[in-house]
């Protein structure tokens, strides 16, 4: 009696495990990317966004993704007629996610650079950006030369700020973090002399956190932020470009700004930040400290 039960339990366990292992393996399909038609057929698009970068990509108290990038993502899903599966990314993983086909589009405040363009394909831009440095009010850093020998500058691993400082200021000591939430908390806690990142981001931080000032509002070259797809995924890239051009006619990104960024930046930054219809205007502006 007892042994019969034991045998049944054992065989159940083995079958259960085999089934599990199989279902795990079944997750695996060939990597690369999914074309526009494949995405439409599956009914779901995977979009990589930040989940801890307010006000561009973050999760509100109800567990919903919000922010400037997400507002655009929602529209993409709507116009494609598919559901959106948001994938939470860290800065350093963004290229990896596209190259391994784990997401279809990266909409995680991704700055267009030459190095990155060799690895992924960028669509038309939807926002302007440069680098900026924020520091505590009582020890403002207004030039990178102000940074003392023992001071550390906080950066986030895998961002343009990191690459820029490593390349142009190899002597500045960097304190690197994985996630936005960690870097910001570290700055608040006084672990570093300043935080270098996209200027949009540091301006938002200074506005939201009394006691901090953006000493260097613009650094490096004026860049743009654009959606990115896996290299060679032309069907999706073309669709995105057409979409961005079409959205320009209805001033979509201005509406996006007003819905998501107005609270943080006020109306002053609207024309500086927003790129409408994929046409970046101010590329000649501010190539300050380069």
């Amino acid at each position: 009696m007892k042994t019969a039960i034991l045998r049944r339990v054992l065989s159940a366990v083995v079958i259960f495990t085999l089934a599990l292992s199989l279902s795990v393996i079944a997750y695996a399909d060939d990597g690369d990317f999914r074309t526009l038609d494949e995405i439409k057929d599956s009914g779901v698009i995977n979009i990589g966004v930040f989940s801890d970068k307010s006000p561009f990509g973050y999760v509100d108290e109800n567990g919903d993704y919000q922010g400037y990038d997400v507002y655009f993502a929602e529209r993409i899903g709507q116009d494609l007629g598919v559901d959106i599966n948001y994938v939470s990314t860290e800065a350093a993983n963004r290229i990896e996610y596209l190259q391994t086909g784990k997401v279809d589009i990266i909409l995680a405040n991704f700055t267009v650079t030459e190095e990155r363009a060799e690895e992924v394909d960028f669509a038309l831009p939807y926002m302007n950006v440069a680098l900026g440095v924020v520091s505590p009010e009582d020890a403002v850093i207004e030039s990178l030369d102000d940074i003392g020998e023992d001071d550390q500058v906080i950066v986030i691993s895998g961002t343009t700020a990191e690459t820029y400082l490593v390349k142009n200021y190899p002597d500045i000591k960097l304190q690197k973090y994985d996630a936005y939430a960690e870097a910001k908390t570290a700055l608040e806690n006084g672990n570093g002399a300043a935080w270098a990142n996209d200027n949009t981001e540091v301006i938002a931080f200074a506005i939201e956190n009394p006691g901090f000032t953006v000493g260097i509002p613009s650094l490096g070259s004026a860049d743009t932020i654009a959606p990115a797809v896996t290299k060679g995924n032309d069907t999706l890239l073309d669709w995105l470009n057409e979409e961005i051009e079409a959205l320009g006619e209805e001033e979509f990104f201005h509406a996006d700004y007003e819905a998501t960024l107005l609270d943080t930046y006020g109306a002053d930054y609207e024309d500086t930040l927003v790129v409408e219809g994929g046409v970046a205007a101010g590329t000649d502006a501010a190539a300050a400290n380069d």
Partner: protein
Amino acid sequence: MQSLGLDVLFKGKNFVRLLGGLWVAVRISLISVAISIALGLIMGMLMAGKNRVLKAMFRVYLEIVRIMPQMVLLFVVYFGTTRVFGWNLSPEASAIIVFSFWGVAEMGDLVRGALVSIPRIQYESAEALGLTTAQVYLYVILPQTFRRLVPLSINLITRMIKTTSLVMMIGIVEVLKVAQQIIEANRRTSPNAAFGVFATVFLLYFLICWPISRLAGYLEKRWA
């Protein structure tokens, strides 16, 4: 309350989200432990055998598990397999593979130890009674090793739950990532949220793992 940042936990669905994140961690561990037990039994039996080549292979496998951090394995499996084989593993599948890889090695070694410790005479007597090899294992040997293995596998569950805190790094939104998201979304209104939220996460892990490891300790003493 305000100054310690505990208030953000009661905003919207925040606390439920934290618990949801914890469930993700527990689910990954339970599935991995189930796989580890089943495959570990088979591996242990093979290891207790006499095949030298198999034994040498298992030694290498055990050594890899012993010295490679789980975090490294997670990265290798999640990003590496896509690069080399073109597999597109979901983060959760990668986590389960890595945790099972670790668990099977531990369980296999424990089963081997338990099997070897059973006196030869039991095998011989059972065979003398006319049982086949499969029957010997199923009716005589395995039931005896079970008692020793149950507390150890329960222990493995808690260690896996604790290790799941790493899967945040390959994009799984578990309790720690939810904690970061909450802190980030409330940075303006409650700047001290980091204290309350991380303290809560610390306690949540403790409340899950402590009873389980007590149970394992109790069974170990009772069945020893």
